[in-house]
């Protein structure tokens, strides 16, 4: 670097100085540190995959690919299959995403689109973010003691009168998919709401002014202009929320009912991979059962990875100027 790049030539006097050796040292070490930590993160993930995969590998020849397509988990006969758990994981997360996503995005619109005085907006935003600070055990207990008795009458009413619809085909006895999904949707709500708010706030104010200038009503501006413009960020929020739902463990282990059944019904007990791990791992037999659990963990990791990659690809493709994101 030539010196004159740093010299602002104002009337023969220089305003700027070349960087001192200290500056250069600081700059270099900062760059080195950021690079090192980035690599460390990647290395950590690789190490986790290596460790889990390494433990899953010995079980692979015994369990094979049919592990993914059978439904029996029997440790006394060493027969393992996680089809119901895979289904339960995706199904519960998907339902939670629909609910949590809908409310999260509407909350983001409500907070960012000048419906509220600034102070109320600020308070509301923080209250919603507080939801993320509640431990998952508390959500589980709340689900058992508050939510279940609350939704049971409605659920059983739906089953009685609309039982021919597959979604309502069983009674809700207590634990089951619906309470799990409701709690899950509340848990992902802060994530979705916060990131969607950022997406809305990132839109330059001029965009909205232009929309109003063209004669749109408030709702037309929000639905036709703001929402599509923020869609990339909102989609990113949904992907993150989905990822969070896939991996949620404790609340689900407490609420989902842990039955290895394939079901469409919202009211039937189901199971998820994370709940299976939480329930079975502490007492698992050394050998094939531990291997099978590691295998299941790999499957969960893979599902999350696919969701995130697909999400990233769609965000880039769908956002106007998405390459900048």
């Amino acid at each position, binding site marked *: 670097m030539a010196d004159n790049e740093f010299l602002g030539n104002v009337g023969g006097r220089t305003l700027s100085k070349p960087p001192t050796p200290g500056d250069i040292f600081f700059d270099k070490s900062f760059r080195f540190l950021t690079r090192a930590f980035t690599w460390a993160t990647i290395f950590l993930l690789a190490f986790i995959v290596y460790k889990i995969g390494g433990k899953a590998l010995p079980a692979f020849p015994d369990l094979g690919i049919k592990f993914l397509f059978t439904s029996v988990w029997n440790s006394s006969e060493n027969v393992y299959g996680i089809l119901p758990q895979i289904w339960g994981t995706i199904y519960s997360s998907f339902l939670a995403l629909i609910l949590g996503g809908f409310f999260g995005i509407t909350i983001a619109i409500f907070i960012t689109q000048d419906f509220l005085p600034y102070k109320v907006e600020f308070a509301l935003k923080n209250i919603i973010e507080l939801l993320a600070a509640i431990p998952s055990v508390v959500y589980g207990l709340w689900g058992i*003691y508050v939510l279940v008795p609350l939704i049971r009458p409605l659920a059983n009413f739906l089953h009685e009168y609309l039982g021919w619809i597959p979604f309502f085909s069983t009674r809700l*006895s207590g634990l089951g998919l619906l309470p799990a999904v409701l709690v899950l949707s509340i848990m992902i709500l802060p994530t979705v709401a916060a990131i969607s708010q950022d997406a809305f706030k990132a839109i330059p104010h001029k965009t909205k002014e232009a929309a109003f200038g063209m004669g749109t009503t408030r709702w037309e501006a929000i639905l036709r202009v703001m929402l599509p413009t923020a869609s990339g960020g909102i989609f990113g929020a949904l992907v993150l929320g989905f990822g969070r739902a896939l991996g949620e463990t404790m609340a689900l*282990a407490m609420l989902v009912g*842990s039955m290895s059944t394939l079901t469409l019904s919202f009211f039937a007990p189901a199971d998820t991979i994370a709940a299976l791990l939480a329930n*079975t791992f502490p007492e698992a037999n050394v050998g094939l059962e531990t291997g099978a659990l590691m295998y299941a963990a790999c499957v969960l990791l893979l599902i999350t990875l696919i969701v995130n990659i697909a999400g990233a690809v769609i965000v880039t493709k769908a956002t106007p100027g998405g390459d900048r994101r």
Partner: protein
Amino acid sequence: MKFKSLFNVALSAAVAASFMIAGSATAGETKITGAGASFPAPIYSEWFKDLAQKTNGEIKVDYQSIGSGSGIKNFIAHTVDFGASDAAMKQSEIDQVPEGVQLLPMTAGEIVIAYNLPGIDGIKLPRSVYPEIFLGKITKWNDAKIADANPGLTLPDTPITVVVRSDKSGTTFGFTGHLSAISSDFKSTVGQGKMVQWPGTNMVKGKKNDGVSSAIRQTPGAIGYTEYGFAKLNKLPMACLENKAGKFVCPGPEGGAAALANAVLPENMIVFINDPEGDASYPIATFTWMLFYKKNKDADTAAALRKMVEYCLDDGQKIADKAGYIPLPESVVKKVREASKNIQ
């Protein structure tokens, strides 16, 4: 007096130990770590607190309630000084410990069938009926088989929801052992295990004893098995069960003690009382064991362990009843005390 001299021996041993073991906190303190079964964990922690007080902090026991299976695993891996298990130890597991294993039953518990039917207390379940409920064959509370045994009660037509454990557990092991003993149908279709394949479609699973208890409490029409202490704590109504002698016995300390009184402990101290004799016996009772090495890492640890066992057998049994466990009968205590001499 004998107790006192043992105390002195342990005291001096502990003092000596503190000089030998690097990193020992204060003089005269022996630290013991144990891990295993969660079912006796409440009473164990009470015992160990009391023991530390009575010995002025000379014996400190750190017990981690991580489950029977993990307890055995840690015991085999020598990461603890003693283990604890509701399902004792299998011979194959004992063989993995070169020093030799001494199992000692420490307390016992009843497994109860708790249910949730508002306004209906003390339901009676004959031994031909409750295995069928857990097989998913009886699905309504007003089923004729249940109603016949309970002429005084008006049973609702609520569907039965069976609550079982989602994790592996010694409680499931004891309960399925009992059901297998009294029902050949149950034995052939389900069998005994820490985790079994429940055949019913009207089931949900709860995590650990407290998960099952809370699921029962929150589900009208639910029935499930749990340890007596947990059902009592959650104030769940418990069914009175028909025992081998054909008498209905409700859960409680008397029925439990009667069941244990008939147990005959073999040399290795492992006995499962799957279907006790006697008119007053409550039918589902299980011992829970502590697992010790016959040869310990040093003499002081062994002395402290023996002292701990002596405390549990003596003062410990007196609070068992209050804590929801069954005190060991005198004959069993005598045998266990004798066997504890093998801890060297």
